[in-house]
């Protein structure tokens, strides 16, 4: 009797263990599509540096449409970018999605991407694509200066991102330099102003800026009055406003415009790995994201990122992209390695 019960217990534990380790987790190996080479099927693995919620929404709808199973590996831009470079031909990834351009350029420069289907490229305006055609923009976000009006008046706001290097700003602005978002902004600065100016600016920032981890945290601190302002991306503010607003209701956003480095619009990228075991489904996924259905999710969902497709407008709550007067930068020229080196040198990493 006792023995039976003990066996029952052991069996139960064993089942849970197996279920947990294998059943649920097992990322299905990317499997080639079935008989018809042009119809996506099977499963794909996406190295996802974009917001998990957004990509999950894309994946769910894509799965509903095509039946292709999508497994996400979440991480940060540079982490996953560097990981792909290290994995090389052995990578199990089929698709790589980033928040910003530098990391995807890194993978591109390592020659790991297959050309994006022409039909997909045609869905996205040229300004959101690299000249190489090996990846494409999937969404965009704008740099902003979030500030707390009770601590700083509109007249005091910086005219340029470069002004934040001024000693007057010591201890008065925040950023999250360890994140890929901010590093993308620095890469734009590097591209626009050169290495020496960037290095100097970073050195001044080391003196002036208060360092937080994550853009949300920066905004939360500004909102709480811990610090007057911070450099973040626009959508954190909108996402919070759409929710409870508890981390943003006391903040406002200041767009630099004037093609200032601070007006930088960062392009999120997507590419298909050349080594993908299921290129048909992978290409179909990218096509879906950049297509009308995928871009609609940007407009209607909770991500508040800008769609890159001409066919879909941005969420009406946001300032239209064309009014932001962003500097023109070829996204494929953004150099993530150089930026990390400079930031390591400046003592942020």
């Amino acid at each position, binding site marked *: 009797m006792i023995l039976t019960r003990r066996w029952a217990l052991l069996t139960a534990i064993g089942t849970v263990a197996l279920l*947990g380790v294998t059943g649920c*987790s097992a990322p299905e190996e990317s499997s080639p599509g079935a008989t018809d080479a042009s119809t996506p099927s099977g499963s794909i693995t996406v190295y996802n540096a974009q917001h998990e919620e957004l990509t999950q929404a894309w994946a769910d709808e894509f799965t509903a449409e095509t039946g292709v199973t999508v497994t996400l590996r979440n991480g940060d831009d540079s982490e996953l970018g560097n990981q792909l470079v290290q994995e090389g031909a052995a990578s199990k990834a089929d698709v790589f999605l980033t928040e910003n351009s530098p990391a995807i350029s890194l993978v591109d420069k390592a020659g790991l991407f297959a050309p994006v289907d022409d039909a997909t490229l045609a869905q996205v305006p040229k300004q959101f694509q690299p000249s190489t055609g090996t990846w494409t923009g999937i969404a965009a976000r704008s740099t902003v200066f979030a500030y707390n009006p009770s601590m700083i008046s509109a007249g005091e706001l910086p005219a340029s991102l470069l002004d934040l290097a001024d000693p007057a700003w010591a201890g008065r602005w925040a950023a999250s330099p360890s994140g890929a978002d901010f590093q993308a902004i620095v890469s734009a600065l590097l591209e626009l102003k050169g290495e020496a100016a960037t290095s100097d600016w970073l050195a001044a920032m080391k003196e002036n800026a208060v360092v937080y981890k994550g853009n949300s945290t920066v905004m939360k601190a500004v909102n709480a009055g811990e610090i007057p302002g911070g450099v973040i991306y626009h959508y954190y503010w909108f996402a919070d406003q759409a929710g409870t607003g508890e981390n943003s209701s006391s903040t406002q956003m200041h767009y630099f415009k004037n093609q200032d480095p601070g007006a930088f619009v960062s392009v999120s990228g997507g590419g298909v790995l050349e080594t993908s075991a299921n290129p048909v489904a992978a290409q179909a996924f990218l096509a879906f994201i950049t297509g009308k259905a995928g871009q609609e999710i940007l407009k209607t969902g909770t991500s508040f990122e800008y769609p890159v497709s001409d066919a879909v407008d941005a969420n009406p709550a946001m300032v239209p992209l064309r009014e932001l007067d962003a500097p023109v930068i070829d996204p494929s020229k953004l150099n993530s390695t150089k930026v990390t080196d400079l930031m390591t040198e400046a003592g*942020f990493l």
Partner: protein
Amino acid sequence: MIPAAPPTAKPAPDPSDTGRGAVAETGATGLAGRTDAAGRVGKRPSPFIVAAAVTVSVLGLLPLGYVIVTGILTGWPTLSALVFRPRVGELLLNTIGLVVITVPLTAAIGVAAAWLVGRTSLRGHRVFAVLLATPLAVPAFVNSYGWVSAVPSLNGLWSGVLIATLSYFPLVYLPCVAALRRLDPTVEEAAESLGSGAWGVFFRVILPQLRLPILGGALLVGLHLLSEYGAFAMIRFDTFTTAIVEQYRSTFNGPAANALAGVLVLLCLFLLIGESGARGRSRYARIGSGVARVTPRRSLRAFTPVGYLFLGGLFALAIGVPFWSVIRWLYQGGAIVWTDAVLVQALLQTVGYGLVGAAVTCVLAFPVAFLAVRYPSRLSRGLESVNYLTSSLPGIVTALALVTISIRFVQPLYQTTVLVIVTYLLMFLPRALVNLRAGLAQVPVGLEEAARSLGKHPFAAFLSVTTRFFAPSALAAGALVFLGIVTELTATLLLAPSGTRTLAIQFWSKVNDINYVGAAPYALLMIVLSLPVTYLLFARSRLTSVS
């Protein structure tokens, strides 16, 4: 590494095996002519057992080897440029400051709490004794989350000290409670008869005798401080570990991350050496047989309210605050947060990893423990210490090493469950080892021999007699590894197969999006999974104190 660990991840030197090993060391092979646990010259251990133990231990050397080899490959000019820079100085200052302030603080609080529940007549001391062990069930990063929810402005060194102290004081408290029960009461009475008052007895007699448990606990606290990521990242406090994780985020496994890892490993070794130096060769065995008398509890008289305030306050800060935050978020989130489809998957997956990891770790720890107890020799002691060394390395270093090694040399293992389990094995082996070793040592060899004289095959004798005896220790060993895995964050983040969602990973992902409401169910589940194990830990620490 992990927010909670056994009170003795590093065993006190076992007095019973010193000296015997020297006798055993005869042949040049180092394995010939050894003695068994009873001190008689016995047979050699099975070559399979030796091979298994050596394999596990060599595996354990991989992370350290990785740090050294990458250091050499990077070359001195690059390495020195990466190490000798202001940022590293900053991190060093933060990390050392954290250790130097927190370790004595946890030691003081741990000892004071142990004394209050163990030696005073405060009402409810039994309840407090259990309650004060419960912070071990709250991972440090959950504790940090609770505190940040309650006091959003927390940041920097002192907040780090606050949260770390509240999370880790049980690591000193538990062994001290156990040791206090073991102390010979007549020794304290002797001090009283020699004119020492309550304070004199405490500082001149009790405290010195608690030196080993305090040192052991303090070492664990130190190692936890060096390896904790989540708790400090949440309050914007940069230590070596948070910086390595950030470097990893920016460069995957670039040279800067490895250089930082090298410095961090040096800090760990420094702690290990410091502790073993302070420990010295001394061991304070109870000298006489003593009297089986329970030490009378002391009334605090006028200080009674202070005693309650201390114990109650400690509990409120360490458990009350995080718990209240979790409950508050859960209340705000309502029923909807529980409908998260990932929740069940994460729970199952976490439990699955925990169970499989615990089983594998126990099975593979067994040969090492078996050799250490039954065939003590320089080899078996060496194998044991290798494993303690590995587990002292922060999880981020071990994970970084295994990611790189698997990607370059054993690609079939890369991003597989097997690799995650191997990482858990390396990180948590000593938890299993300590318990299995103690359990095996308690089994009289005579019983097994009796079974053999009754006609049983040695293996059958082992199965029928010894395993029965040490099953409880094996269970405890498994439970401790389980606890470690359930609350493990950094290594799992780096190594798990794509699509893996453990409770810790999901919690962390929600917290990073400042979705504190969504994170709450995961926090609660981690605590609920850890609580029984923590109680087991507490119960066992009392049990061993009796024998």
